[in-house]
């Protein structure tokens, strides 16, 4: 009975996910909604605004450096939690 319920919910989730993936636009389509002025600005102006040849490095450490700071904080808190748990033994 419980297995049937689990299978039913998994089938519902699968139908929702497949329907979403079918509606997504193809990657690299020029008429894509995500081809607006933001990636164009990143690709065209990043060399002169940041001086880095690697566009991805300039995005994650200059344009969006605050998000990378959040990720470094997550790493630090994870290590602190593991250490405080294992030092107690």
């Amino acid at each position: 009975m419980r297995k049937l319920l689990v299978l039913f919910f998994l089938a519902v989730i699968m139908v929702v996910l497949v329907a979403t993936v079918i509606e997504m636009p193809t990657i690299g389509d020029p008429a894509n909604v995500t081809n607006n002025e933001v990636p164009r600005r990143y690709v065209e102006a990043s060399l002169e605004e940041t001086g880095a040849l690697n566009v991805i490095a300039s995005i994650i450490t200059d344009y969006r450096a605050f998000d990378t700071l959040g990720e470094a904080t997550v790493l630090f808190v994870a290590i602190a939690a593991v250490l405080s748990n294992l030092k107690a033994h």
Partner: protein
Amino acid sequence: MEDVIVRYVSRFILPFVQLYGLYVVLHGHLSPGGGFSGGAVIGASMILYALSFNLAAGSKKLSHDVSSILESSGALIFAGMGLLSILLGGNFLANRAAGIPLGTPGNLFSSGSIAIITFGVGIKVASTMITLFYSLIEEEGHSHDHH
């Protein structure tokens, strides 16, 4: 593990692995890579050393206190660069808008705060992997020897 061949070969290749990891971290703004992948390579080299020799030799090379200090200093370098941008007159974590010199593209010392932030993230990820590995592998008898 006590194998002679594993120890011999890993003693040969470990300097090259660490040199490659350092290259990936320091050239984060020029070639693909950056702080996270380079830090993973450096951490993996220390894990290889601790695996092929025993854990006591690995702890002697990079002790628990040193790796804790490295981990905290990696995060402090990142936040310190942001505060330096405030001190220079811009926003938090600003690069060119705060007056940090960018240099010519293609040099090693270019792009202002990107290289320093990449380096901080690199040593942070490396010390995270080393600390996790040592904490999970230590037996009960070793955990009281390092204080």
